[in-house]
């Protein structure tokens, strides 16, 4: 095990790894934030499906899980990766989400203009995803495990999302929005779980 404090080389091997107190506090804080935002993401999803009308939100509703530009769902193999790699993927997903959420909000502003709460939630979600992504990246940097390579360009995903969202029919746009909100919730939940792995003794 690395003697450098805050190392992630074997975070699970020894729960008595001594992190700097402020770093541990930061991890707890970021974990708490992820936990809170996961709850908000659940509320966003519920409100979203309610406003699209049935069958959205019905128990048996299962639209195709279409791939979204620049963002996929957490892979099944995600849980088996080293924690620093998982957090890098979490940070990348959180960075890709805001333009997609913005695109969904713009489309919903046309479809549901009298739903200010939904629109506000979508706007908040984009902002919160950015904030949590930045917090995770800051943690990675503090732990010496920051991403050193080039990452996917969010602007390209944003451009694709914007143009496609504006061009598609209403029903596909509703499905796309559902997909994005679902991915948002999945990645927040994943991030919360991955951060929990960093906490000494497990999640607070």
């Amino acid at each position, binding site marked *: 095990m690395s003697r450098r404090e805050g190392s992630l080389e074997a975070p699970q091997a020894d729960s008595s790894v001594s992190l700097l107190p402020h770093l541990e506090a930061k991890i707890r804080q970021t974990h708490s934030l992820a936990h809170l935002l996961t709850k908000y993401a659940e509320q966003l999803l519920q409100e979203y499906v309610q406003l699209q009308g*049935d069958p959205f939100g019905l128990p048996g509703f299962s*639209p195709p899980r279409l791939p979204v530009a620049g963002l996929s769902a957490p892979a099944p193999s995600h849980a088996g990766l080293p924690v620093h790699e998982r957090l890098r993927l979490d940070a990348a997903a959180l960075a890709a989400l805001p333009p997609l959420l913005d695109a969904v909000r713009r489309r919903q502003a046309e479809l549901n203009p009298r739903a200010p709460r939904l629109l506000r939630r979508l706007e908040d979600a984009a902002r919160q995803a950015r904030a949590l992504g930045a917090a995770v990246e800051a943690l990675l940097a503090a732990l010496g495990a920051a991403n050193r390579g080039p990452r996917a360009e969010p602007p390209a995903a944003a451009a*694709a*999302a914007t143009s*496609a969202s504006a061009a598609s*029919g209403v*029903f596909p746009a509703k499905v796309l929005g559902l997909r994005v909100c679902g991915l948002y919730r999945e990645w927040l939940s994943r991030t919360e779980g991955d951060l929990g792995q960093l906490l000494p003794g497990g999640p607070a």
Partner: protein
Amino acid sequence: MPAGRRGPAAQSARRPPPLLPLLLLCVLGAPRAGSGAHTAVISPQDPTLLIGSSLQATCSVHGDPPGATAEGLYWTLNGRRLPPELSRVLNTSTLALALANLNGSRQQSGDNLVCHARDGSILAGSCLYVGLPPEKPFNISCWSKNMKDLTCRWTPGAHGETFLHTNYSLKYKLRWYGQDNTCEEYHTVGPHSCHIPKDLALFTPYEIWVEATNRLGSARSDVLTLDILDVVTTDPPPDVHVSRVGGLEDQLSVRWVSPPALKDFLFQAKYQIRYRVEDSVDWKVVDDVSNQTSCRLAGLKPGTVYFVQVRCNPFGIYGSKKAGIWSEWSHPTAASTPRSERPGPGGGACEPRGGEPSSGPVRRELKQFLGWLKKHAYCSNLSFRLYDQWRAWMQKSHKTRNQDEGILPSSRRGTARGPAR
């Protein structure tokens, strides 16, 4: 300009969705892993229809292997499976649907018409917008708070139920010159309202109207013409105080301050007082309080809690000949009359009580005035100037009269009392 017009009943047969960027696979029917997957297209895409109209739609299946069959496909609308008799197979790959007498859309984002494969999976979707064109908005009313802004409210035509998202836009312009302007702050005092916060001219009329637009057409209200000075309102009078009048068990004194925002403009103001017994919902209104900032309520029940409110009408600002708009009522202020062993009088008003139960307040007052004239008038010419002098005298001397009240019989208490200072 016509008051309203209807757009065509638009069964807008939209073109199929354009090709999407390869990066973003959004159209339903993207090949799914592990299946001889099919895609489909519903036509028309996202049509707009009048309530009661019919819809002919098709679901055309494409896929691998080619010539995917339409057998087994079915439709749902807002999650409910449609009866098979509404569908028919047009050809091997196309299922048709006929809906008649459509109801208004259940949600503003559109009714979800979905084409399903035999296994229930979703092949394609289209959103239906079924509703009515807007009717002419009406009953526009506007008011200005302290001459600084303008807020308008209107009633949507047909009570607003078009089943479609209908956009209301309040427009205004100076009557004789200037361009159309659009109000930007909506829903300030209810769902059909708008607030114009600044840059309003005085002493010149504005034309104001409302335009309603939805997918099926548009309508315009009649034009309202007004001068800001004619629709001024203000905040309720502040600092309303209600207090007992010494030991008088049937009276309360009400005092307030004129609204400070209009102090530089307010030459005259009318006030109204309303009051009610604590456990009652019935308000009594005193509306001839004129330009005073105090009043005495008489003829009240002893030992009773009363709630009192005051409101203001800033009429006559800058010479406007029109009555202003009453402010909201002030917050209720409560006070109780002293208890008394004697049976109290019935309800009263902010007027001196006359000895003749059937006399109105003006007559009673005039009777007192004539009695005073006999003592103080030096000429027989009666005039309102003398009457005003008498009223001023009454206001100054009410304190002295209170002391004199003690010598008056209880049934005539308040007879000589005028407006409190």
